[in-house]
């Protein structure tokens, strides 16, 4: 197999726009995400959510999960209020993206992919709150979308990407390493093309592009935050569904050093306690993810 060059898939990524129904929802949604929250029309969101049975069901299930502390959310409107606008937008976005991959094209299976993405979103939000990052819902969105490039690879080079996942599974290695070797580019690079094409917010695009960078991470604190959440998910039953032979050393990871630069108080933080707090939430996160994605 000759390695794909990133340039070769660029036209294919752009062609994704032509897929029915997708950009019609994604584009206004991402535009909405960039509005200040007081300018977002709640009724419009409720209407959007109600319009789509699957999305409404996801919102209700999530609003009723113990993670959000609600038990009796019965209407779409109360689900929207319980979850908060930004999270609803993230769910909408996730569901829309889910639909761009036809069922027979999945290389990594859909449930595994969304478990990891939603898991990373929830851990990013939890971690954002723990370290005092000012916009936990932005962290949630970035966590949800960080692996956008996996969808791109799934669609643009399905068979090669399947082989790439198979090799990663057999060698217990990280997916991006296997992509480098078998495709010649990673989901970070292909994800960036789609993110820019869809005019995602700049900081979210940075996360998509740089979340596997180990040296000198670029961008704001969002990149290291999501990078660490992604690592935690992968060592805590919310990874890509196979054993990755790795050890995650927060204190030794440049992402942690970058976060400490942004939040100097972190230098004195009880790292074990932080990770155990995240670990503690992991059981419920797995439950929420399974509630959303398992029939």
């Amino acid at each position, binding site marked *: 197999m000759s390695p794909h060059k990133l340039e070769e898939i660029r036209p294919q990524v752009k062609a994704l726009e032509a897929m029915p129904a997708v950009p019609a929802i994604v584009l206004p949604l991402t535009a909405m995400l960039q509005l200040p929250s007081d300018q977002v029309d709640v009724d419009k969101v409720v209407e959007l959510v109600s319009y789509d049975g699957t999305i409404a069901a996801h919102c209700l299930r999530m609003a009723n999960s113990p993670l959000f502390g609600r038990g009796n959310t019965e209407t779409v409107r109360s689900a929207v209020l319980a979850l908060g606008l930004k999270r609803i937008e993230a769910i909408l976005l996730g569901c829309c993206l889910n639909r761009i991959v036809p069922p027979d094209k999945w290389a990594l299976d859909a449930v595994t992919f969304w478990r990891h993405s939603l898991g990373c979103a929830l851990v990013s939000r939890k971690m954002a709150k723990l370290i005092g990052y000012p916009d936990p819902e932005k962290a949630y969105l970035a966590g949800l979308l960080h692996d956008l490039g996996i969808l791109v690879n799934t669609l643009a080079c399905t068979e090669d990407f399947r082989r790439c996942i198979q090799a990663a599974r057999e060698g*217990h290695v*990280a997916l991006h*390493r296997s992509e480098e070797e078998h495709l010649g580019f990673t989901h970070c690079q292909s994800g960036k093309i789609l993110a820019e094409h869809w005019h995602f917010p700049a900081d979210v695009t940075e996360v998509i592009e740089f979340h596997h960078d*180990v*040296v000198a991470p670029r961008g704001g604190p969002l990149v290291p935050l999501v990078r660490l959440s992604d*690592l*935690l998910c*992968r*060592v*805590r*039953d919310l*990874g890509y569904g196979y*054993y*990755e*032979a*790795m*050890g*995650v*050393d*927060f*204190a*030794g*990871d*440049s992402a*942690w*050093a970058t976060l400490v630069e942004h939040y100097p108080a972190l230098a004195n933080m*009880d*790292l*074990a*306690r932080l*990770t*155990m*707090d995240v*670990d*503690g*939430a992991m*059981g*419920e996160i797995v439950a929420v993810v399974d509630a959303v994605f398992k029939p």
Partner: protein
Amino acid sequence: MGVVKAARESEDLRDPAYLKIRDVIYQVSGIYQPEEKLYLLASRCARRMSAVSAKSPAEYLERLTARGNREEELRLLLNEITIGETYMFRSQPQIEALRNVILPQILKAKSAMGFKRLHLWSAGCSTGEEPYTLAMFLLEESEKMLAGWTFDILATDLNDRSLTAAKAGIYGEYALRSTSPLLRKKYFRPYDDKQLQATDQLKSMIRFDRVNLNDDSKMTFLKGMDLIFCCNVLIYFDLGSKRKVMQHFHSNLLPGGYLFLGHAESLYQVDDRFHLVHFPGAIGYWKPPVGYTSGGKP
């Protein structure tokens, strides 16, 4: 009635006293329960609350912090918290981390220096479940990853009764519940109708010794370890003793070696020279080699 009431109230996790009890335990022992796991703490407290007839978590907290019975009650509560944590192959993710990440790392570094021997230490081995688990794991690897390597396991405890039991190597169903039929057959023989005994081959892999972790004169000589396992032992030590033991562990370990504690234990404010490393499903503390700078690890 009092007991029933206490048990019922103990299930009321909204009681802020539980968070305070959690913090007391964390401060004293390093064992941490995240909020989502408070129900576990509550159920362990419930047993102690019944025993001392405390009617509410707040009353129990008072007992736990009042002078006089503080130390004794904390010890009893810690016993409840760590109970049932000793059986063989209790942590499969830890074994997987050893097999897939840690040993390959250590073997590579040691063979580069021409060494072909591994040294493991189970510090606070209690009745022996941990060292026998390690021995079985290493023996199983001796034809594979460890071909051409030798290893020794030191297993120490302060308690003579535990050590005698460990040396005898006789175990019932509870201790062996996660040990596969294949390993049982290979490394154990029937002892009576309910118990199995470790074979001489398995026993010969382990050297048992009585060591007080507070005894500087003994600790100083236990050098050159690749892996130290010290599960739920330091929780009973005060901060000063903990720091001293960690000081020893740090110099007992070779650079690049790992220390494993109980699954909820933390080293915060005890020792900051170790790096906390997450493996799939397990946590270890790594002693970085001299000159190690952070970043750049895959």
